[in-house]
């Protein structure tokens, strides 16, 4: 199983020598780099000095114990088992808990879990989908095998004649991405930045038989053409990328479009989740609390606070936290610098297989096994399907699950 992204490809074979992966079959370029491991593995340190695991865990526990308002963040690159322990740790320490979905696909996954948006599996897409829409998404760069494994090129039960006859793939984006190029010009709709909601409303109008107009003068015949293709779809799938998520201020236009589409056809939506188990975190937290992210536990009572003010971004902006535990994530790289800066001012604990900007600023760094290679567990694919990760070989490094368990016990 490849943990390079949330496609979680399960058809990978590897050749190994000792504890090194030497050759990887079938995985994409990015997946191979993930499975072969990074060139700068993380060392176990306390205050930038080499330390043994017990010392690092004791120090991590004392930081979290002393903190009034700790943050536990990351989780996209952790197994579901590790995520559940992390949620328990947050409960125990009265922490804020959040994950990368908070500034990525969170709203879409939430709407799916609340059954506000209809979804399906990637296998359904392969077997049935005849109209596929990539909206604000460029899987050729973010999820390289998406089109070949599921969404465009493969044959499936009801799609036996190949992509040229059996499927229509449409891209809607603000730039002509590599995905747009292979889906061909006539199926590419270029929008101005922030024009998605308006285009969505125009498309919804076209589906209702009204003339679709946009302030950016997209040819209304082309929008009508698209609405006709979508109306006639036997099984449609819309893949929502970050381009769309960031462009929409609220999801209502998307709900309206999906509802309208489903008056005529059978349309489904799948979020283009990036990290391999981001969706798993959303599911696991939802099962325990009814919320997918952005939570604050209150140590003494059973109270929970939820909402944007508890998101990783807002607690950092407002400097609400006095310590942080980061698991399998590099917020100093992935968040705006002006927001992430606060992290460098507070005691940080990071658990990761590799060195990154965040680990370089951490009081405690604890190396963990690489998920899917050196440790196993379960994870949830971008389409909500649970899969089993098998480890390829044993390693000296503990899994993040084990490390989190030991920190919890030490508190």
């Amino acid at each position, binding site marked *: 199983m490849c943990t390079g992204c949330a496609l979680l490809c399960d058809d990978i074979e590897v050749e190994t020598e000792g504890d090194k992966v030497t050759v990887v079959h079938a995985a994409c370029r990015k997946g191979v780099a993930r499975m072969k491991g990074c060139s700068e593995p993380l060392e176990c340190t306390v205050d930038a000095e080499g330390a043994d695991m017990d010392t690092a865990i004791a120090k991590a526990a004392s930081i979290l114990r002393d903190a009034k308002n700790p943050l536990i963040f990351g989780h996209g690159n952790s197994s579901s088992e590790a995520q559940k322990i992390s949620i328990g740790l947050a409960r125990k320490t009265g922490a804020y808990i959040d994950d990368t979905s908070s500034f990525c696909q969170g709203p879409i996954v939430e709407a799916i879990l609340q059954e506000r948006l209809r979804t399906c599996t990637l296998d359904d897409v392969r077997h049935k989908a005849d109209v596929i829409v990539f909206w604000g998404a460029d899987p050729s760069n973010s999820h390289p095998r998406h089109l070949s494994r599921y969404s465009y090129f493969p044959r499936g039960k009801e799609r036996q004649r190949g992509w040229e006859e059996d499927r229509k793939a449409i891209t809607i984006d603000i730039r002509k991405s590599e995905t747009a190029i292979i889906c061909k010009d006539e199926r590419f709709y270029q929008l101005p930045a922030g024009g998605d909601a308006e285009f969505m409303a125009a498309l919804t109008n076209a589906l209702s038989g009204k003339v679709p107009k946009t302030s950016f003068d997209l040819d209304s015949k082309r929008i009508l053409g698209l609405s006709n293709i979508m109306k006639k779809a036997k099984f449609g799938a819309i893949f929502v990328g970050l381009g769309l998520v960031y462009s929409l201020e609220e999801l209502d236009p998307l709900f309206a479009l999906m509802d309208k589409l489903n008056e005529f056809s059978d349309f489904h939506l799948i979020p283009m989740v990036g990290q391999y188990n981001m969706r798993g975190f959303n599911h696991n937290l939802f099962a325990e609390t009814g919320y997918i992210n952005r939570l604050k536990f209150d140590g003494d009572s059973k109270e929970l606070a939820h909402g944007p*003010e508890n998101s990783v971004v807002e607690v950092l902006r407002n400097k609400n936290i006095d310590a942080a535990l980061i698991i399998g994530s590099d917020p100093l790289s992935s968040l705006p610098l002006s927001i992430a800066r606060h992290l460098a001012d507070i005691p940080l604990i990071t658990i990761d297989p590799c060195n990154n900007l965040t680990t370089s*600023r951490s009081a405690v760094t604890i190396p963990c096994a690489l998920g899917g290679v050196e440790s196993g567990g379960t994870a949830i694919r971008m389409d909500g399907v649970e899969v089993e990760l098998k480890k390829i070989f044993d390693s000296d490094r503990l899994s993040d699950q084990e490390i989190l368990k030991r920190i919890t016990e030490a508190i």
Partner: protein
Amino acid sequence: MGFGQFLAAPEIKLKVVTYRDVFQNTAQESSRFGEDYETLSAVIRLDLKDISKLSIKEGETVILRNGSGKVVVQAQKSGYEQAHPGIAYMVNSPWSNVLVPEDTGGTGVPKFKDFEVTVQSARGASVTGIKEIF
């Protein structure tokens, strides 16, 4: 590095759109601190018209500035067949994140993919290293 030296060069305001690139992502898996990751990240892709407005050549460095920060990156042609003056593209990376505004309107979601910068030639200056960013 003093910024006085750039004062004479023309500057323009551009909208930046960020995107993802599989080669840069691959380099990130190997090392955040590697040369490949910097080469593939610290880049801004410009329209030909904007390149000539800046009186720079492809491959030279430019300084990008806004209320959030400043960073020196390499200028390249975007290669898109359709002209897009006023819009530039950057791969999502710590370099683009220097420039993403802090303001979120309380939503918890920064405008990662859509912000404005002032661009000016930084001829002769080298690209900001990842360790200098923070």
